[in-house]
């Protein structure tokens, strides 16, 4: 069965299990999503399911977007995302809700991590920095050497250094589903999820088990 959802991160809290232990969970308001397109190998060269999430005023969308959604008979939607699946067993126009997920199942959650701006090597890559004492000055958080000497005489491509950190697509794998509330379109997964509160997240069946 196709398992995928688009949702909004609500925030973290805790839920007590039947033994009274507190489980840290992230709440996600997920779905209802509409199947807006099914990609097929004959036409598109691959298989995937395109989902749409969050109804929006038609004024917010362009004519092309409205036509794309009108073709399959779904309301205007703010977000469209594709989920690669081998066997798309859903039809265009179908509704996908949290009921596709069950408590105890494992899921992968993809989000956009919080932007950290331009950060140094110590925060961004865990560099050790320089010595704090022994007569050193201005070297505590320095990145150190970027490479060898006159051979190769340049910095190797892809070497780690200071730069923009965060605001990247991040997936956390194998999170356990703790709660499914179809009435409120609510899903709770054990542990943290990338991104700020209110951030868009994609929920997929776990790739590894």
């Amino acid at each position, binding site marked *: 069965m196709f398992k995928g959802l688009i949702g*909004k991160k*609500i*925030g973290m*809290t*805790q*839920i*007590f299990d039947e*033994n*009274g232990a*507190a489980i840290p*969970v992230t*709440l996600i*308001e997920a779905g209802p999503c509409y199947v807006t397109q099914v990609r097929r190998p004959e036409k598109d060269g691959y298989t995937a399911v395109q989902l749409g999430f969050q109804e929006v005023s038609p004024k917010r969308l362009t004519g092309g977007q409205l036509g794309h959604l009108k073709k399959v008979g779904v309301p205007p939607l703010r977000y469209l995302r594709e989920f690669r699946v081998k066997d798309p067993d859903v039809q265009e126009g179908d509704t996908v809700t949290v009921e596709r997920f069950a408590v105890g199942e494992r899921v992968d959650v993809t989000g956009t991590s919080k932007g950290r701006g331009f950060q140094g090597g110590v925060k961004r890559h865990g560099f050790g920095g320089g010595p704090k004492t022994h007569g050193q000055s201005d070297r505590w958080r320095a990145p150190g050497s970027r490479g060898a000497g006159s051979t190769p005489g340049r910095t190797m491509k892809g070497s780690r250094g200071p730069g923009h950190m965060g605001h990247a697509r991040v997936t956390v794998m194998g999170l356990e589903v703790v*709660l499914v*509330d179809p009435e*409120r379109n*609510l899903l*709770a997964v054990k542990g943290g999820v990338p991104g700020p*509160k*209110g951030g868009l997240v994609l929920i997929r069946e776990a790739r590894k088990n």
Partner: protein
Amino acid sequence: MSAELLKAVAAPKNPNIPEIQPGDIVSVYLRIKEGNRERVQEFRGTVIRVRGGGNDATFTVRRIASHGIGVERTFLTRSPRIEKVTVHRHSKVRRARLYFLRERQGKKARLKEKFIRRDANQ
């Protein structure tokens, strides 16, 4: 919207936990599972910290165990493992976090009792 969703999964408030303030001498009755037997254990001491946060609220109780060793325990206020909490007395304290008690022993670690008039809030 999101705040309501957070509340939707919140555990119910325990009616057997009265309002707790820093400096209170309290007994916390905890349900403890031993194998398949359940019993209730009492933890009596001074409340040195009360942390809000609705569903995620906690409070910390400090007691002096045998040989004068201080033991602190933090409880989740909404935990179903707490059977009940009783307040034995209130103290006159001037701060919210009573961490200064950690460095004090014996007579110095006492707090002045505060008497709250019952009829004032009823």
